[in-house]
């Protein structure tokens, strides 16, 4: 009973800062909507010889334009509602369909990126040669703008017959392996000298030291890296959808929207992408909490 009450208070105290920030963002958004759309609205009044418009009418009209500079939050929410709840999932106009395309690419790319990132880190930590030879490449790989590389990856892979989800996922991988590698190199090297000495006194071999000491020590670093990696994996997936000719995915919605000046469609795709990324990061957080509990981490 007391636990229940405590849990409820905890939930409220944790949610309220987020809600306050959300409210502030929405308020600023509405203000910006009026400010940015007003010039075009006044132009319309002028051309329609409407000289009797009032401020309240102006504010109302700036939020109901068809192709506003900045759509108002309720326009975006209305668009999202129309394209998710009111559209069949199989429809090419369903935002759920496009979200799923991006989400599946993100997850595949993130998984490959995580495995690749961990393997690279293990290699770098255990071999001086790999440390010296690989690390500079790992870092320089991230200095190349992904927008420039993405079309080439798609074209090259297409030439050797790899099509569909994988080329886009590879772009996610390309972005997401990096924080995993950097985080895991640090994590695998994090054990105290004392802990390593202890392993030596047991004459433990490299594998035993890895699984019983280095790996558990690196897990907090892994989760921190995965939170970054999964959100940039989504960026990679969206970027990967652009050069495919805007067939499907949130990236395709962004591109098509900008072709036809459909700002409401662009913003609804953006909000959807932000929502998905936030959910994915939260899921990594849930996994993190679960693992922390299994590892006896003292509750904060």
């Amino acid at each position, binding site marked *: 009973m007391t636990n229940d009450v405590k849990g409820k208070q905890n939930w409220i105290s944790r949610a309220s800062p987020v809600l306050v920030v959300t409210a502030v963002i929405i308020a600023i958004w509405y203000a910006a909507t009026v400010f940015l759309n007003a010039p075009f609205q006044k132009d319309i009044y002028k051309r329609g010889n409407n000289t009797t418009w009032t401020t309240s009418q102006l504010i109302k009209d700036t939020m109901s334009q068809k192709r506003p500079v900045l759509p108002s939050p309720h326009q975006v929410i209305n668009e999202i509602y129309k394209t998710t709840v009111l559209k069949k999932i199989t429809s090419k106009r369903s935002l759920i369909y496009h979200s799923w395309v991006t989400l599946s690419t993100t997850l595949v790319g993130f998984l490959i990126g995580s495995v690749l990132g961990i393997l690279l880190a293990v290699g770098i930590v255990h071999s001086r040669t790999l440390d010296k030879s690989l690390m500079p490449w790992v870092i320089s790989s991230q200095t190349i703008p992904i927008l420039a590389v993405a079309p080439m990856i798609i074209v090259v892979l297409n030439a050797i017959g790899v099509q569909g989800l994988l080329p886009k996922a590879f772009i996610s991988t390309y972005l997401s392996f990096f924080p995993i590698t950097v985080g895991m190199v640090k994590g695998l090297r994090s054990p*105290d000298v004392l802990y390593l000495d202890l392993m030596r006194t047991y004459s433990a071999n490299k594998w035993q030291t890895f699984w019983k000491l280095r790996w558990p020590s690196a897990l907090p670093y892994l989760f921190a890296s995965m939170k970054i990696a999964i959100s940039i994996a989504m960026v990679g997936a969206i970027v990967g959808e652009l050069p495919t000719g805007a067939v499907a995915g949130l990236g395709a919605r962004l591109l098509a929207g900008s072709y036809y000046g459909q700002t409401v469609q662009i913003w609804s795709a953006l909000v959807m992408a932000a929502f998905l990324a936030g959910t994915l990061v939260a899921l990594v957080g849930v996994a993190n909490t679960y693992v922390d509990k299994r590892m006896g981490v003292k509750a904060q």
Partner: protein
Amino acid sequence: MVRKVNSKNQSQSVIEAKKLSLTFETNDGPVHALSDIDLTVKEGEFVSFIGPSGCGKTTLLRVIADLETPTAGTIEVDGMSAHEARLARAYGYVFQAAALYPWRTIGRNISLPLEIMGLSKAEQKARVQKNLELVDLAGFEQKYPWQLSGGMQQRASIARALAVEPDILLMDEPFGALDEIVRDHLNEQLLKLWDKTKKTVVFVTHSIPEAVFLSSKIVVMSPRPGRIFDVIESTLPRDRTLDIRETPEFLELSHRVREGLREGHSYD
């Protein structure tokens, strides 16, 4: 098996160092951590290394444990080279900090070396139980290290060292970070443990009462270069309680240790 035969051939000397030296090369030139160490530790002895910081007492313990390699001289542990002794897990090492892995329960910390040795689950469980009882921590198996006090953590780390069932126990200032009341209590427990298990113990400390109270042999060391200044065979009976610290014999031994430390110390 080989180990036992060898140690008998060595006329029961478990640790034998001859002309042992260790020089660290640093940017500021060589540091003579150990110089010309001759030392014999016999089976069942409780030997303390005492000296000011920088006298090489911890380094000497680490050489015995094959955590450092000497630059000259020979070292034999349990009738083998220190390296072979480490591979054979001839000793258990207790560090100044408990060094329990925070993600493992106390029970799983104690079974860590046993997992590495490849013992069966049943054997692991039996040894964990036995050694937890030995250090009075029965019932704390499922607790995580942070749930235990500093003294209890150090006892758990002693149980972990004993679980390997080594011939030798190497202890590097294990109670240095604890307050005096806890330290007295653990000293008494350690003596009982030594009596029960008949192990050879090598103990590093910088506390004179601790060294005199625990040891059957006290090795007084002096710094720059680290060397052995005096070796004192204790005249105290093997069976002792904390009250023995009030006896003239105890005070006499303490006096000799203190004199040795004073003479061996250079103040420059």
